[in-house]
């Protein structure tokens, strides 16, 4: 290996990964076709580092692949039984702290939380269910908000702030009381500035923010993660863009 290739590469589970300076470990991995589980990362948005699904071991220390910069020569452990066991526990905690009833959820098959659980063979939520009481907001004409399924990844917060320039969503409260709130005089989505062509209306990785009237247009069994498990869809994860409905299409409704 020449000096130049060393200067611009690092390793994940022994595999050499090239990177361009400034890339995070996760960005470089995905660009190289290597899968690292992640939930609060989205290629169109700044990293957030909150879900910890992407935790890897960098030169012997834990770190979030989505926030830590790739550096020449670092050695990253990713796909190991220990890390995957921990990731499964994180998923189980996410499942029991919300209300996730996949058979009745429009997002099933397109949901990243579910896809990760399938991929890591999470067969049960293991922990005692919290069955929290959380509100559903159906006041918006085109979008509904079901906080029962919210995992507080703040992708909607970031999309609304950084892409739409609207600040429709915000995380409020602390610890177990944390929850997403809507920026409007009444606190309801219908009175907010959110419109269906906003990135924030489409970015939610789970079934918490859903567009109305498209529920089962794509049938169960033909959805994003039905054919191939999420770990084999690196290309999609690296390059997907938030689907933004053209304004013209919205006006026609």
């Amino acid at each position, binding site marked *: 290996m020449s000096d130049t290739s060393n200067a611009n590469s690092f390793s994940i589970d022994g595999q050499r990964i090239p990177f361009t300076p400034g890339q995070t470990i996760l960005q470089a991995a995905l660009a190289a076709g290597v899968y690292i589980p992640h939930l609060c990362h989205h290629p169109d948005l700044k990293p957030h580092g909150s879900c910890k699904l992407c935790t890897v071991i960098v030169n012997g220390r834990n770190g979030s692949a989505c926030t830590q910069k790739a550096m020449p020569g670092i050695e990253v452990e990713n796909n190991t039984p220990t890390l995957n066991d921990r990731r499964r526990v994180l998923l189980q905690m996410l499942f029991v702290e919300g209300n996730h009833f996949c058979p009745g959820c429009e997002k099933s098959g397109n949901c990243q939380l579910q896809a990760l659980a399938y*991929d890591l063979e999470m067969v049960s939520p293991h922990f005692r269910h919290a069955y929290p009481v959380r509100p559903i907001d159906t006041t918006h004409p085109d979008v509904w908000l079901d906080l029962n399924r919210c995992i507080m990844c703040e992708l909607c917060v970031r999309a609304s702030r950084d892409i739409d320039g609207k600040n429709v969503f915000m995380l409020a409260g602390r610890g177990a009381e944390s929850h997403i709130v809507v920026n409007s005089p009444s606190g309801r989505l219908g009175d907010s500035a959110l419109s269906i062509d906003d990135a924030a209306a489409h970015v939610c990785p789970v079934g918490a923010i859903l567009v109305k009237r498209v529920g089962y247009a794509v049938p169960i069994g033909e959805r994003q993660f039905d054919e191939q498990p999420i770990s084999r869809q690196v290309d999609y994860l690296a390059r997907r863009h938030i689907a933004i409905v053209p304004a013209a299409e919205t006006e026609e409704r």
Partner: protein
Amino acid sequence: MNAPMNPRKLRVTTTSLSGCFGCHMSFLDIDERLLELAALVEFDRSPITDIKHCSQHCDLALVEGGVCNAENVHVLRELRANSKILVAFGACAVNGGLPAQRNHLDVGKCLSQVYRTPDGSATAIPDDPELPLLLDKVYPVNEVVRVDYFLPGCPPSADTIWKFLTDLLTGRTPRIEHPLLKFD
């Protein structure tokens, strides 16, 4: 199926607690493989046999449905006490499923809402002693008894059930992965 030579048939008990019998239907959906299974297992207490109580020493219990009332608790405890291996069979057994969507409601209010008279002046909540009392919430099976294996799916597909059973009957640790692992 490469089953080991087994002179004794395994005793299998099944039940549907607070389920819709969909998981049992899916079980029957293994079709002609039922004959292969029948050579290896014998059904004890089950909706299939209509036996009302399970005998001691069952090898395998498949429990469909979550735990929503006092009778469910008794049945579940009976199966657990008499079975070597107990399986949470299907989405409702695993996390309470759709019946658990009542968990954010108060049972008392729920009943009075459903059974009140049309003008709302009185309620006629059934109180026949034969009727089991509802629990405050619908519980997943593993929050009431110890569970050995989980088989998610609403219902788990026939192929998923078959994979699970054949793994178990041939002495392997059951492994359900893509594309058989589904929560819906």
